[in-house]
C-alpha cells in the first residue's frame, strides 16, 4: 500500500494517544504530569518532522481520492499541532483542577487533533463527516471534563445538543448533495459544474452543509452555543475550541467552497457578506456588557470568525490567504490570553479577577494586555496585520461591487466597538480599585516558555509578515476562484 505514508502524521498522533492511555496504567499519580510532557514532546517531534517534508506542487491523493495531501492541508496540520501542543501544556497546568482522568484528557485532545488533521486533508464528503464527528464527539467529553462542576456539565450538554443539530444538518445536506449529483467526491463535483448549477436540490444540500460548518466556526446563524460553552468548559478546552476547532471549520469551508463547488460559491458572495457582517456586529455588540472573561472571549470569537468570513466573502486567493494569516496570528494571540486566564482565573473567570494583576505579576499583566490589544487590531501586533490583509482583500473587490465598501465599513465599526471591551480588560488589569488578591502568581517554566513563544509569535506575525504570508499564499494555491 503506497497510500499509507501519506497518513503517517495522523497515524502517529493516534498512536501517541493510545500510547498515553497505555502508559497511564503503569504511572503512579505523582508522575502524571509526565504524560502531558510526553504528549507535548511527541507532538513537537511530529511538528518538526512535518517541516522536513517538502511540499510538492502536485497534490498526492490516497484512498480513492478521499484523502488529499497538498499545501493547504499541510499548513493547517501544522496549525492544529501547534494549537494542540499549547492546549496540552495548559492541561498540565490545569491538572490540579481536573479530579480524575488526566491521561484521558491528553488522549482525547490528541484524538480530536487526529480528526482535525483528517479534516484538513478531506477531499470527500464522507471523510468530512467522519472527521468532523471525531472532532465533535471528543469535544463533548472534553467540554464536560470537570464532572463535579455543574457549569462544565451544562456546557457539555449544550454543546451536545447544538452539535447534534449541526451534524444532522450536515448529514442531511450530504444526502441531498448525493441525491443531486450521485457523488460525494470533491473532484467529481468540480468536474460537473454545468449539471449542478441550476439544480435546486443541490443548492439546498450545499446550504445545509454550510450551516453545519457554521456551527464549527461559530458564525451566524449557528453561533449561539459559543458563549455558553466557552464559559463552562475547562479553560484549556475553551482554548482548543477557540483556536483549533475554528481552524478545522475554516479549512473545510475553504476546501468545499473553492475546490468542490467554486462555480457556485462565486454567485453566493452576498450570502457570505451578510454572514460576515452580521457575525461581526453580533459578536462585538454582545461582548460589550459581559463580565465573564471566557464568555467575553466566546462572543469575541464569533466576531473574529466574522472577520475571517470577510476573506471568504472576498472570493479571491488574497482573501483566503488572509484568512490563513489571520488564523495564525489568532493562534498566538488567543494562546497568550488563555494561558493567562488559565493561571489567574482559578475560582472565577470574572473580569474582576484580573484586577491588580499588574502588581501581582507584571509579566502576565503585560501578556494579557498585549493579547487584548492584538485582538482589537492595534499595530504592530498580529491582529493588526491580519485585519489589514483581510480589509485589503475586501476593498480590492469594491471596485466591481461597492457593497464591499459597506462591508469594510461594518468591519471597521466592529473593530471600534471591540476596542471598548478589550480596553475594559486592560483597564481591569492596570487600574482597578479593588485588587482581587495580592499574592504573587507562580509561573512554571513550561508556562513561561509557552507565553514567550506566544508573545514572540504575536510580534513576529505583526511586524514581519513575509514568511507566514508566503506560506499562506502557497497554501491557497490549492483553491480555485
Amino acid at each position: 500500500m503506497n497510500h499509507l505514508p501519506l497518513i503517517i502524521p495522523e497515524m502517529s498522533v493516534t498512536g501517541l494517544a493510545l500510547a498515553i492511555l497505555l502508559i497511564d496504567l503503569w504511572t503512579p499519580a505523582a508522575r502524571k504530569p509526565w504524560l502531558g510532557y510526553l504528549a507535548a514532546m511527541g507532538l513537537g517531534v511530529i511538528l518538526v518532522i512535518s517541516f522536513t517534508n517538502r511540499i510538492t506542487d502536485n497534490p498526492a491523493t490516497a484512498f480513492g481520492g478521499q484523502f488529499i495531501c497538498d499545501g493547504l492541508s499541510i499548513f493547517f496540520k501544522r496549525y492544529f499541532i501547534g494549537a494542540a501542543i499549547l492546549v496540552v501544556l495548559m492541561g498540565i497546568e490545569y491538572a490540579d483542577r481536573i479530579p480524575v482522568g488526566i491521561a484521558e484528557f491528553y488522549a482525547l485532545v490528541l484524538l480530536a487533533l487526529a480528526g482535525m488533521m483528517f479534516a484538513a486533508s478531506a477531499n470527500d464528503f464522507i471523510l468530512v463527516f467522519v472527521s468532523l464527528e471525531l472532532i465533535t464527539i471528543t469535544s463533548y467529553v472534553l467540554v464536560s471534563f470537570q464532572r463535579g462542576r455543574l457549569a462544565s456539565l451544562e456546557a457539555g450538554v449544550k454543546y451536545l445538543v447544538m452539535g447534534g443539530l449541526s451534524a444532522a444538518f450536515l448529514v442531511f445536506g450530504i444526502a441531498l448533495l448525493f441525491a443531486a449529483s450521485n457523488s460525494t467526491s470533491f473532484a467529481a463535483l468540480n468536474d460537473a459544474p454545468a449539471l449542478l448549477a441550476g439544480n435546486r436540490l443541490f443548492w439546498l444540500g450545499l446550504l445545509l452543509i454550510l450551516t453545519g460548518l457554521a456551527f464549527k466556526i461559530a458564525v451566524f446563524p449557528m453561533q449561539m452555543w459559543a458563549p455558553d460553552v466557552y464559559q463552562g468548559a475547562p479553560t484549556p478546552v475553551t482554548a482548543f475550541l477557540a483556536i483549533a476547532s475554528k481552524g478545522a471549520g475554516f479549512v473545510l469551508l475553504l476546501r468545499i467552497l473553492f475546490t468542490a463547488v467554486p462555480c457556485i460559491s462565486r454567485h453566493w458572495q452576498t450570502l457570505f457578506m451578510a454572514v460576515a457582517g452580521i457575525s461581526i456586529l453580533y459578536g462585538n455588540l454582545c461582548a460589550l456588557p459581559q463580565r465573564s472573561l471566557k464568555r467575553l472571549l466566546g462572543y469575541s470569537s464569533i466576531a473574529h470568525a466574522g472577520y475571517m468570513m470577510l476573506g471568504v466573502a472576498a472570493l479571491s486567493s488574497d482573501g483566503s490567504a488572509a484568512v490563513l494569516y489571520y488564523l495564525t496570528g489568532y493562534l498566538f494571540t488567543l494562546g497568550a490570553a488563555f494561558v493567562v486566564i488559565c493561571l489567574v482565573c482559578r475560582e472565577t473567570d470574572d473580569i474582576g479577577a484580573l484586577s491588580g494583576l499588574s502588581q501581582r505579576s507584571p509579566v502576565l499583566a503585560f501578556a494579557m494586555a498585549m493579547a487584548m490589544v492584538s485582538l482589537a487590531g492595534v499595530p504592530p501586533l498580529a491582529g493588526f496585520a491580519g485585519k489589514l490583509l483581510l480589509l485589503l482583500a475586501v476593498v480590492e473587490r469594491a471596485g466591481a461591487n461597492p457593497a464591499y465598501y459597506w462591508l469594510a465599513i461594518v468591519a471597521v465599526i466592529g473593530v471600534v466597538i471591540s476596542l471598548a471591551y478589550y480596553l475594559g480588560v486592560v483597564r481591569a488589569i492596570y487600574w482597578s480599585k479593588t485588587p482581587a488578591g495580592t499574592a504573587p502568581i507562580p509561573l512554571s517554566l513550561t508556562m513561561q516558555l509557552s507565553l514567550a513563544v506566544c508573545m514572540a509569535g504575536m510580534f513576529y506575525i505583526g511586524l514581519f509578515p513575509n514568511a507566514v504570508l508566503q506560506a499562506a499564499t502557497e497554501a491557497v494555491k490549492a483553491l480555485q476562484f
Partner: protein
Amino acid sequence: MALPLLAAASPGPHTATSPLTWIFGLPLLAALLMALIPRNFRFVIRSLALLATLSSMVVAVVMFCQFRNIETARPGFLFVEQHEWSPAIGLGYHVGVDGINVGLIVMGAIVAFAATCLSRRIVTREKEFYILLMLMAGGILGAFASLDLVCFYGFHELALVPSFIMIGLWGRGDNKNFAAYQITLYLSAGALLVLLGLLALYLQLPPGERTFDMVALAGYFQSRPVSLAAERWIFPLLLFGFGILVSLWPFHTWAPPGYASAPTPTAMLHAGVVKKFGLYGLIRIALPLMPHAAAQWALILACLCLGNIIYCGLAAMRQRNLNLLIGNSSVAHMGFAFLGIASLTTIGISGTVMIMVAHGFLAALTFALSGYLDEELNTLEIHEMGGLLRHLPFIGTVMIMAMLAGCGLPGFANFPGEMMVLFGSWDRFPLVAGVAIWGALVIGGVYMLRAIRNIWHGEKSWPGISDPANVWRKLPYGLLLACLILLGCYPRLLTDSIAISVEPVARMASGEPGPAGRPSVQVPPPAAAVGTPQATVAKAN
C-alpha cells in the same frame, strides 16, 4: 554630532541611517531600555527619558539647520532612508522630510522634550509613565517622518493607544474613565476610516505595481489619476477619518474633556503634536491625489470649519474650567487650519502648515501652564482664581503672552499662519473668511482677555504659591515661548520651505497642470506680516 547628516543629499539607494530614524528611534529605544530597569531606579529612568528626548530634539534641530542649507528650490525629500520590508505587498520602511513635515518634526521633538521635563510631578508608577510617554513621542515623530502608508498609520496608532492608559491611570478629575474611553474610541474610529481610505487608494494600482510608498503612489497617480468613482468613496473616508483625528466640528466632542482629564505631559503631546497628524495626512495624501473630490468637498469643509471657529469659540466663552477653555480654544484654532486646506491654494495650505507648527507650540505651552496652576492651586475653576500675577510673575507673564498669541496677536507664530490662511481663502470663500476673522478676533479676544482678567488680576492673595524654583524648571516654558516668538518674528524660517513643498500639492489639488519647474507663486505675506502687522489687521477688520 557624528551622524551622516550630509549623506542625505546624495543620490542612489538610501540605505544609510537617516537622522529621522534617530529622531523617533531614540525615544522608542529609551522605552525599550526602561522596561529592563527596575522600578525603584527612579532617577535613572527619568534621566534616560530626558536624555532620549533631548538628543532627539538636538538631532531634529541640527537636521533642520542642514535642511535649510541643502534645501534647493525644487520639491522633493531630503534625509531619505529606504529599506524593503515586505515586498510581497509593497510594504517598506521609507522616511524623509520636505517643507511640509520638517517643521512638524522639529516642533514634535521640542514639545516631547518639554513634556518630559514637566513629567517631574508624576510620582506614582513613574516607570510605566515614562515608557508610555516615550512610546507616544516616538510614535508620533515616526508618523510624521514616514513616507510609507502602513508605517504612517502604525506609528500614529502607537502614539494613540498609550493615551488611553495615561488618562486612565494618571488622569485628573472624576470624569477620567469616561474621557479615556471617549478619546480612544473616537480616535480609533477616525484612524480606521483613514486606514480604509488608504487601503482603497493602494488598491487603485494594478496588482503587480502595488506599493504603500507615498512617493511612488503620488508619482503613479500623477500620470494615471484615480478614477472618479473611486475618488467619490475614498476622499470622504479620508476627509472624515482625518477630520475626526483633528476634531473637525461636529466630531470634536472628544477633545476638550479628553485634554482636561489627561495628565499634563499627555495633554501637551496630544493637543500639540498628535492632533496634527490628521491635517498632515490631508495635505500629504488626500488633496494632491484626489483633486476632483477635493474641489467638490472644499465648500463643505469650509462650512464645517466655521463650526469649529464659531461654535467651539462660543463654547470656550462659557467654560468655567481653565483646561476646558484651553481645550475648546484649541479646537477652535483647528478651524483655521481646515479653512486653509479648503482654500486649495498654495498660500492657504502653507498657512495651514504654519498654523500646525505654531499651534503645536501654543497648545503644549498652555497645557503646561494650566498643569502648573493645577498642581499649585489644586483647582482650575476660573472664578476661584484671581490675583495670581503677584505670586506667579513668571508663569503669569508666559501665560498672558500665550493667551495673546492664541488671539492671533502679531509677533507670535500663529499670526502669520492665520494671515496666510485668510489671504488664501479670501478669493474662494470671501464670506467664510470674513466670518472666520470676526470669530477669531472677537470671540477669541473675549474669552482670552476675560480669562486673563479673572485669573491674574484682582485682590485675592495666595500665600505659599510661587513660581518654579529655578531656571531649569522654567526652561520648558521658556523654550516653547521662545519658539512661538521666533517663528512669529521670523516666519520665513519655515514659510519659504513650506511654500516650495506645498506648491505642487496645491497645483495638483486645484487640478491645474501649471507651469512645470519653478513655482510661480511667491509668498508675500510673511514679510508683509512682519513689516506692518497692525495695518494688516486693520485692513482685515
